[in-house]
């Protein structure tokens, strides 16, 4: 019975994973990836880890994939077109993949050392209480480092996704200290003049270029 369930979920996971790679439309890849996540959550339940199964569905299939799908929709990605560059490497790739599969099969066939699970599964391993105990006693430092990592990720994402003022295509913009070619301001200067003007904030750049300020609170709806 357990073996049948394992084969079912593992089959769904591997099939969906192949679909992730095989699909040309990124949105279909994202939907297949959600299938992988949910079948992995089922495998976690079989491995007596109900807390991680719930977190897998909530964090991965919920939060992360919603973010990915949102970005795919936002950028309106077109389908990947087929290209023939480097196609002479396909036979080599097939050969190397066969070699890798042979090696893995060899290891799994010959190494038969498997730990024996204690009879009568009464351990509380995997329950929320045991995870919380471990997280807040022995592994407190990694837990705190993780919170700092999340803080840095928030700051980094905000910095990366911030929209600067609309600049003409000739402008050279460096985040932080923004440098503009002089001929943007003065059209009489020849194009190859390397003189540049420095502006330190987006608001300054907008003022130099004569762009209306987006951040004016009076214009906000």
């Amino acid at each position, binding site marked *: 019975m357990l073996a049948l369930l*394992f084969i079912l979920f593992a089959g769904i996971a591997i099939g969906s994973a192949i679909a*992730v790679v095989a699909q040309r439309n990124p949105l279909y890849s994202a939907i297949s990836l959600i299938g992988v996540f949910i079948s*992995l959550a089922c*495998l976690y339940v079989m491995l007596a880890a109900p807390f991680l199964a719930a977190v897998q569905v909530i964090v991965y299939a919920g939060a992360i994939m919603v973010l990915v799908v949102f970005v795919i929709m936002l950028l309106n990605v077109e389908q990947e077109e087929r290209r023939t560059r480097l196609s002479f490497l396909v036979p080599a790739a097939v050969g190397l993949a066969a070699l*890798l599969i042979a090696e893995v099969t060899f290891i799994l066939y010959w190494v038969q050392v*498997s730990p024996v699970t204690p009879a009568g599964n009464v351990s509380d391993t995997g329950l929320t209480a045991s995870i919380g105990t471990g997280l807040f006693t022995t592994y407190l430092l990694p837990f705190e480092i993780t919170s700092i990592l999340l803080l840095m*990720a928030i700051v*980094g994402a905000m910095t990366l996704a911030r929209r600067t003022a609309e600049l003409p295509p000739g402008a050279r913009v460096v985040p932080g200290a923004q440098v503009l070619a002089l001929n943007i301001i003065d059209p009489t200067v020849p194009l190859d003049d390397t003189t540049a003007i420095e502006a330190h904030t987006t608001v300054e750049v907008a003022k130099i270029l004569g762009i209306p300020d987006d951040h004016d609170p009076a214009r906000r709806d």
Partner: protein
Amino acid sequence: MTPELSWYLAVSAVLFTIGVAGVVIKRNVIAMFMCIELMLNAVNLTFVAFASFFQDVTGQLFVFIVMTVAAAEAAVGLGIIIAIFRNRETLDVDEASILKL
């Protein structure tokens, strides 16, 4: 017949290999990103399998931290993807072959 540890390890190895193949094959940045998530999940399955068979909660704590790192990676990675798209109007990694935005 109950599933053994090696079964889970085999599934994990297959998923990881598919993820590596996806990163190598795909040219779309978002598709490569999803293949990286696939590899992270394959490793998570190994952690949970070992934790379950050795009755040790440490492996599950590692999975918890890996999930947090994956969430942070998703936030920053998608920010980078949006920045690339805004500058180049494409998501093809071959087009973004220099680090300069």
